[in-house]
């Protein structure tokens, strides 16, 4: 037994300093709460153990939202990116998604520097082995070295470290990601507190040596020339861009893999965890899609100061020798050397149905959780939960009302509502199709949706708030200008002719011109004399989107209005569902398990029918009247 000692008193303790942990710790400290963040190894703060990129479809939206709330992820990738691309730029504005390649080491060191320079934040190395819980209230944590830290709230962000196991062929290792040690004693401790733990699985491809690649055999991939940045706080950052490379698997590759399936942990039955459907291993892809003749692979740099290259599309749990054998069948990789092998990793996490919308654990007061521990996958999904858990933990310390974003306000709201209302049976990944109000939740207007709210609770800084206000004002001014400025027909028609669309007879207001699908701000530069020279691109974009897609946006706004009415119908906290006789048994059980906070949330629980909702509404009204009598 290790002797324990009193190591100090904090308001908030964050367990883990991955992408969820750092956002949680920063949000809490920035809101003035004395915060301790504990990491198994300080050299793994904000480590990216898988792909060297931030953003992408749906995920890019999350990063923009985290930034709009005053989080760090957007700023940090802006400091450390080596290439940037707006995905889906040929499609509608709602699905434009920014993705940047990161210098992993820089991402880590920059984030560590931010943490170390944040007031109220204490950064310490230590592995938590025990949660101090008394009468269903968390009181603090104990580390492996015996340090006992007390606090008002604790946030768990254990990522893939909890009870983790690594699989490389028939090698099965008790290890955390990337050769770091896992966390095992905490599992036993949590089990003794009746946590509902389950096992999920994910994987990462091999890293290969850049000096052993034949670049002539691959296709070079550059990012956007006019790249955008993630943070609303940044205008422009100079970039010395690094390229990625594209290559493909072939028949030979597939033959090697298929003839060695007995060496994959996935098919020999040693892996029990549930993996995500959207990032299958290469062996799973071959088995499920037999008629696909080749699979594409992106070779991506891991940073500026390393030769390590990430092989995107090649996640596997095959043994090391097989990995090398099949990679060497691929154009560009024929003489490659593996620096780190691919592996599958299995870890413990909880069922997110055990959480509330503030990410507090229902069975233990003041204990919050975020990230992969909650059943998600991805840096961005983790960070998004981290900032919300951090905010709510801080608000709880300050005894202020909780901060919840709903499905109509943010992808973050969709993410958390999905998790705690519907649960998930595979690691959850954000996708734009998960949002029912996609046209409103665009990445370009995240600041408009969230910055004010964050400022109100004391997270977004004065500087951010002022910048935001200025932008909103410019949008208003520009909107008025284009609604009142008329352009002459003989100025406009040459442009229309060039675009081969019908010309006009009389003058036309700029706003009406912009409503036409084919016409953009850029077409009008020459003839739009009253346009201010310093009109920001951001502002033009906002104005154009709201003008061009007005009809659709209005439609969604009307849907949101109805949605909100149900979200605002709250269910009394102590409601005893077993005493609502007219509810069906299944509905009663589900409602009791999930304990939704509003009628809206209740209506999204699977197994709760509209008729059950009707019963519930009447019951709540009855309660209310009885209480008034």
């Amino acid at each position, binding site marked *: 037994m290790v002797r324990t000692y009193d190591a100090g008193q904090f308001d908030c303790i964050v367990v883990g300093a991955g992408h969820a942990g750092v956002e949680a710790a920063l949000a809490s400290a920035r809101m003035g709460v004395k915060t301790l963040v504990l990491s198994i190894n300080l050299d793994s703060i904000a480590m990216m153990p898988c792909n060297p990129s931030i953003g992408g479809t749906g995920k890019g939206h999350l990063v923009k939202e985290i930034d709009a709330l005053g989080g760090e992820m957007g700023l940090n990738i802006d400091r450390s990116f080596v290439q940037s691309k707006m995905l889906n730029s040929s499609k509608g504005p*709602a699905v434009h998604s920014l993705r940047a390649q990161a210098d992993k080491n820089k991402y880590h060191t920059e984030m560590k520097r931010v943490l170390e320079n944040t007031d109220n934040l204490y950064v310490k190395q230590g592995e938590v082995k025990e949660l101090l819980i008394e009468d269903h209230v968390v009181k603090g944590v104990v580390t492996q070295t015996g340090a006992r830290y007390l606090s008002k709230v604790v946030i768990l962000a254990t990522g893939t470290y909890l009870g983790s196991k690594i699989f490389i062929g028939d090698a099965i290792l008790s290890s955390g990601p990337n050769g770091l040690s896992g966390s095992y004693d905490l599992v036993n401790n949590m089990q003794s507190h009746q946590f509902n733990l389950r096992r999920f699985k994910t994987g990462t491809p091999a890293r290969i040596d850049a000096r052993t690649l034949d670049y002539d055999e691959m296709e070079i991939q550059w990012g956007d020339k006019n790249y955008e940045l993630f943070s609303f706080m940044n205008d422009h950052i100079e970039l010395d861009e690094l390229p990625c490379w594209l290559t*493909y698997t072939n028949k030979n590759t597939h033959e090697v893999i298929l003839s060695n399936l007995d060496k994959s942990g996935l098919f020999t039955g040693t892996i029990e965890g549930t993996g995500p459907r959207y990032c299958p291993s290469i062996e799973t892809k071959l088995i499920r899609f037999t008629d696909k003749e080749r699979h*594409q692979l992106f070779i991506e740099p891991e940073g500026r100061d390393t030769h390590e290259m990430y092989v995107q599309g090649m996640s596997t749990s095959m043994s090391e020798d097989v990995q090398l054998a099949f990679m060497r069948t691929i154009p560009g990789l024929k003489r490659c050397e593996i620096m780190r092998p691919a592996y599958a990793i299995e870890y413990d996490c909880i069922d997110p149905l055990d959480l509330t919308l503030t990410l507090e654990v229902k069975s233990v007061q003041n204990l919050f959780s975020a990230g992969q521990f909650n059943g998600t996958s991805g840096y961005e999904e983790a960070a998004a939960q981290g900032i919300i858990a951090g905010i709510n933990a801080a608000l709880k310390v300050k005894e202020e009302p909780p901060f919840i974003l709903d499905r109509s306000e943010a992808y973050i709201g969709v993410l958390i509502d999905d998790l705690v209302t519907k649960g998930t049976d595979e690691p959850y990944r954000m996708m734009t199709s998960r949002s029912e109000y996609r046209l409103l939740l665009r990445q370009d207007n995240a600041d408009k949706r969230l910055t004010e709210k964050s400022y109100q609770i004391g997270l977004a800084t004065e500087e951010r708030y002022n910048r935001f206000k200025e932008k909103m004002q410019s949008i208003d001014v520009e909107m008025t200008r284009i609604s009142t400025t008329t352009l002459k027909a003989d100025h406009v028609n040459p442009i229309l002719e060039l675009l081969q669309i019908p010309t006009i007879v009389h003058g036309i207001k700029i706003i009406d011109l912009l409503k036409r699908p084919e016409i953009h701000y850029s077409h009008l530069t020459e003839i739009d004399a009253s346009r201010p020279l310093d009109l920001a691109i951001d502002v033009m974009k906002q104005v154009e989107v709201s003008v061009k897609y007005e009809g659709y946006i209005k439609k969604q706004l009307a849907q949101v209005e109805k949605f909100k*009415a149900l979200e605002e119908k709250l269910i009394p906290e102590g409601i005893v569902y077993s005493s609502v*006789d007219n509810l069906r048994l299944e509905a009663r059980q589900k409602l009791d398990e999930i304990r939704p906070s509003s009628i809206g949330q209740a209506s999204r629980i699977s197994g709760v029918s509209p008729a059950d909702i009707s019963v519930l509404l*009447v019951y709540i009204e009855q309660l209310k009247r009885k209480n008034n009598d």
Partner: protein
Amino acid sequence: MITDTIVAISTPIGEGAIGIVRMSGPESFEILDAILKTNQSKLNHRELVYGHIIKDEKIIDEVMAVKMYAPKTYTKENMVEINCHGGILSVKEVLALCIIKGARLAEKGEFTQRAFLNGRIDLAQAESIMDLISAKTKTGFSVAMNQLDGVLSRKIKSIRNQLIATMAQIEVGIDYPEEDIEEITYQQIIDELIVVKDTLNQMLANAENGKIIREGLKTAIIGKPNVGKSSLMNALLKDSRAIVTEIAGTTRDLIEEFMNIGGIPIKLIDTAGIRETADIVEKIGVERSKAAFNEADLIIFMLNASEALTDEDLMLMSLVKDRHALVIINKTDLEIVIDEAYINSHFEDKIVIRTSLELEQGIEDVEKSIQEIVFGKQFEINNDEIVSNSRHIALLNLAYKNIVDAIHASNDRMPYDFIEVDIKDSITHLGHITGEAVEKDLLNSIFSNFCLGK
């Protein structure tokens, strides 16, 4: 739920000289304004006005309508009542039109529920609403599906799956832009949507004639072989307004036809026979006939005038005795051998008529008798079924309109994510008929059809 506008037929269907369609909720006035043509420029609180209900520029019915302004109404919401002509068709069409314009079919007791939730009625009254709602809940989720005919629900499901496949193709391009997957083109989207549009359009055209939506009085014709069951069916069909498709038959399937007799929608089922048999194939037919017989609202029992009563006849007579039934003695053109006096005494509470289908005699009597049985209140038509079918038609209509919009948007080369909004709405509307939600199906379709991932 509490945010939308609900509509219902609030008078018993098929009875009385007028039928009332009632709406409550924020959009009730808007919906009335959209469907009512009247000389009155503004409808005042509680003022009854004369006008016409218009659909696609055609007059559906001549009505009296009234607006009642919140909060001085039963539900404390804006309310509308439309007094239509009685009978099933006109009320039903007005109801469907309200749904198409955005109202939702009210659940049982929902007007009263709103009255309670809005503070109008007292607690004691609320207890009875809870019972009413829960009576419905206990019957389970699949009410919507149960009322759907198998053929129709299969058809709707297949359309829905087609749309989900199209959407998955659009979605995979959006959520996985860098995967090695060929992106769907505008032309492909349009082509796929046009197929769906045409199918929906055809279903709607049929539904208008009451053909496809399996509604109406379930009426089974029984009797021993060669008694004239098929002849009766054909004769009634020839006389009635709607001629319909036959359900694709496997061996010994039942033949179902839909018709309209004197304003009563009828689903006529020609049974294969209910006798004991050793033949396996025939046994299946017999089982189905028995099921149809058991489920029928009305039985038409046929006897052959030219033969003495057989054991089979006697067995059927005892089965029919306690049912709503019309008894027909056919083949009166031949020499009459049957014991009519015995039949009349056995069926003293039932209508017994004579026909000669061969000579086309007595068919009018059959129709008249059916009307008499139905309107003579020997029993009630199942209101729920007729109403829920109006709801289905309205939902089909909405789904159809979404597809038209989506095609329009595709032609305009709107970004994919906008087109998808309309397709998703269409899938949602179809899902309201079949009782299925969108998201899970979509993700399943994406991950099972496309190879994705890092």
